[in-house]
């Protein structure tokens, strides 16, 4: 995945990165809720494991009773008991 070039204007205007680029934003509220913006697709979905691919890598979520609440084409909300999550970078080099 090629990183988009950030124009100087956008940097000056301080527009949040997730708005103009495809970089994902992950928000965890408490330990039971997780919002992922700018996701690409779901690779795997089980009750205890969710694998989500984004434009810069893959996010793995472990837990149990995991639900996919409210899904739109760029937002995703995961609820359930989240145990851990890790990130797999897609290396450019």
């Amino acid at each position, binding site marked *: 995945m090629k990183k988009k070039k950030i124009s100087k204007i956008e940097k000056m205007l301080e527009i949040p990165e997730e708005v103009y680029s495809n970089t994902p934003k992950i928000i965890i509220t408490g330990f039971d809720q997780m919002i992922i913006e700018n996701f690409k*697709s779901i690779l795997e979905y089980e009750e205890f494991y969710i694998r989500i691919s984004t434009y810069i890598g893959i996010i793995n979520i472990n837990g149990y009773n995991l639900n*996919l609440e409210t899904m739109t084409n760029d937002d995703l909300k995961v609820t359930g008991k989240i145990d851990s999550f890790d990130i797999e970078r897609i290396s450019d080099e």
Partner: protein
Amino acid sequence: MFVKILLKYILGYVRISVEGYYIERFINICTNNKIMIWNIKKEKNAKIYLNIGTNDFREIISIAKKVKCKVKIIKKKGLPFLLHRYKKRKIFLGFLLIIVILIGISSNFVWNIEIQTEGNQEFENIYQDLENSGLKTGKLKSAIDTKEIVNKVRLKRDDIAWMGIELKGTNAVVKLVKADKKPEIVDENEYCNIVSEKAGVITKINAQNGTAAVKVGDTVNVGTVLINGWMEGKYTGIRYVHAQGEIEAKVWYTKQTKIPYNITERSDTGNEEVSYGIKFNNFKINLPKGVSKFKIYDTIEEEKKIKLFSDFYLPISVIKITNKEVKEEQKTYNIEEATNLGIQQLEEELDKEIEDKSKIVNKNINTYEKEDGVEVYVTYEVTQQIGTNEKIVY
């Protein structure tokens, strides 16, 4: 997001189960096609539950065919389905409509008249006067001309200093300010007599202007002229004046009562029975409670109007009927007790009537024993100013 789901609720959504091997692919295709799905839950290895809007359902089926998944509708939710279900309940719907219409119509009427006064001023028969002037419960709000009613009531009554009517919802708030009753003032320049306003014996008379008509020790009645409004001069003849002067007289206040020896005294036992009734404007329905189990009781009715919001009164009121059991006891007094009781009662009454206690000169108590009770007379002797002005009418 919440707004979006609410919108979907209004448009209707379904909860479906999707069964198949490539479920992740199914979800991804949905998101790529910008179909909103929410509340996704995986149950077994190859089955998920999800919510979807009704308008996207056809698209979902074609996607499911593509990835070879089975789609099953589990629940239909949302307003369209709800309305569809109530379509069959025509009577229910009809009544709902009727109630809404009735409430709408009844909001155009005045159902409660509230009177607000400053302090504890009391107005006698104000409700009746208001009714006669055109403000009564059950009248169309648009037919009420507040200005006209205010004018009419103020013409009728002379004890109102200010009055305002405000229509709030179905509640008419009448605000009143009491006017002090003015004594009839006779102009200084006009000729007048001084007339007695109470019966009594004159103890002091001092005519500053005019001619005294009575002497000290004379008995006067109500309306007797005390100081005449004219003066007689040797040379000038009779000349009319504005009479002025001080007249003090002994006035007697007498109260009388009869205390029987045998008295049935009523007292509360503390037992209560409560029943309720409903009143529609003037039509009353008592919820049955049967005959009261008490032998002797007092009934107290309390009426409470039902209101929807703070000012939306409905023409329905709930009546709370409380029956209080009363015990009757026969009591016998001897002569002494009865007289004491009578004197006490009368003195209390008289004390209320006479404001200035220092003017009381003498107290006089007479008792007459009769067969069945004691008659008690209490007389207070009070020195008082008794003169008032009265215009001379030729």
